[in-house]
């Protein structure tokens, strides 16, 4: 897969493979908690790779596809400017530092997991991470609070996955088409 013709992006400074790597490398290094606002700042405001509209459009595509938004975004931006080498440079740049950091933390955890102080520390950290996830779930579900159809579909997902611990594949293959079908009926 080669890069999309440069005409679409001619007005920008098209990054080369090295710039793609360093841009996403710095993003991976600095993006604590949420990379998305930083990603926009880096690609649109600081480096001028994309216009704001192009960024929003690409983000829309990446949210629509399986995988993490920002991971998909790095692949899409890399491909757009420099084809397959660009995609590799972008995603590797993005995950290099975070991978090294988590493995470092994992080594520390593995070595000291039996120490009561370390166990308590990680107990608190894990509980806080769970709290963050609860907050994320509330923020995503809140806009649906008056949407009966949405609430029913969401509740069925929770029942299937969290209560009955059903496998994800059949759950998704049943509920996603059902939800899309009911939406299309609702729209017409």
């Amino acid at each position, binding site marked *: 897969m080669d890069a999309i013709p440069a005409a679409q992006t001619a007005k920008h400074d098209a990054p080369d493979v090295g710039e793609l790597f360093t841009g996403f490398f710095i993003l991976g290094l600095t993006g604590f908690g949420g990379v998305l606002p930083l990603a926009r700042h880096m690609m649109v405001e600081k480096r001028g790779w994309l216009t704001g509209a192009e960024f929003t459009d690409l983000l829309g*595509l990446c*949210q629509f596809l399986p995988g993490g938004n920002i991971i998909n975004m790095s692949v899409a931006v890399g491909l757009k400017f420099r084809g397959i080498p660009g995609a590799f440079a972008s995603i590797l740049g993005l995950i290099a530092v975070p991978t090294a950091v988590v*493995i470092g933390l994992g080594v520390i955890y593995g070595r000291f997991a039996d120490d009561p102080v370390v166990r308590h520390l990680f107990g608190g950290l894990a509980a806080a991470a*769970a709290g*963050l996830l609860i907050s994320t*779930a509330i923020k995503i579900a809140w806009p649906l609070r008056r949407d009966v*159809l949405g609430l029913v579909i969401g509740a069925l997902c929770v029942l299937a996955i969290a209560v009955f611990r059903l*496998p994800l594949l059949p759950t998704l293959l049943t509920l*996603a088409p059902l939800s899309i079908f009911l939406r*299309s009926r609702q729209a017409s």
Partner: protein
Amino acid sequence: MTATLVTLALIFAELSLLAFGGGNTILPEMQRQVVDIHHWMTAQEFGALFALAQAAPGPNMMVVPLVGWHVAGFPGVLVTSLAKFGPSSLVTGFALRLWERFKDRPWRRTVQAGLVPVTAGLVTASAIVITHASASSWGTILIAAMVAIATTKTRIHPLLALAAGAVLGLTGIGQP
């Protein structure tokens, strides 16, 4: 060892293609596979790995290489990362080509609207499964509840909330 790596590759390649709505939607399935089916770790250990990944910089799917490392060392990191990020990246590559063509079609909006409640339900399920594993004593339940309320009601930085949870945890209050 090879059999373990092949199993890891298959699990994470499937998760890669099922992760509609981002990484948080596949946590329960990841936990089901590595804890309930393959017994590579306990639910508490999975919760701890998830927490470590949240405390690290970068995209929120860094629990993937960490699970690989825990199960099979550095080959595990390589296999899980490739399997998790490869297939979805290929899909992104092909979709980028089709995107311009379907951009303004009404069915795209319908599909997107249909996926929103599924994503919301899956992230809620993730929150339930992870909280069940990580908040088992009254001390940790209190920390989880405080962080959930603080990060929902205020604009506190997530990393700060994690640090506060770790410090509270360090005191050992309410933990066995």
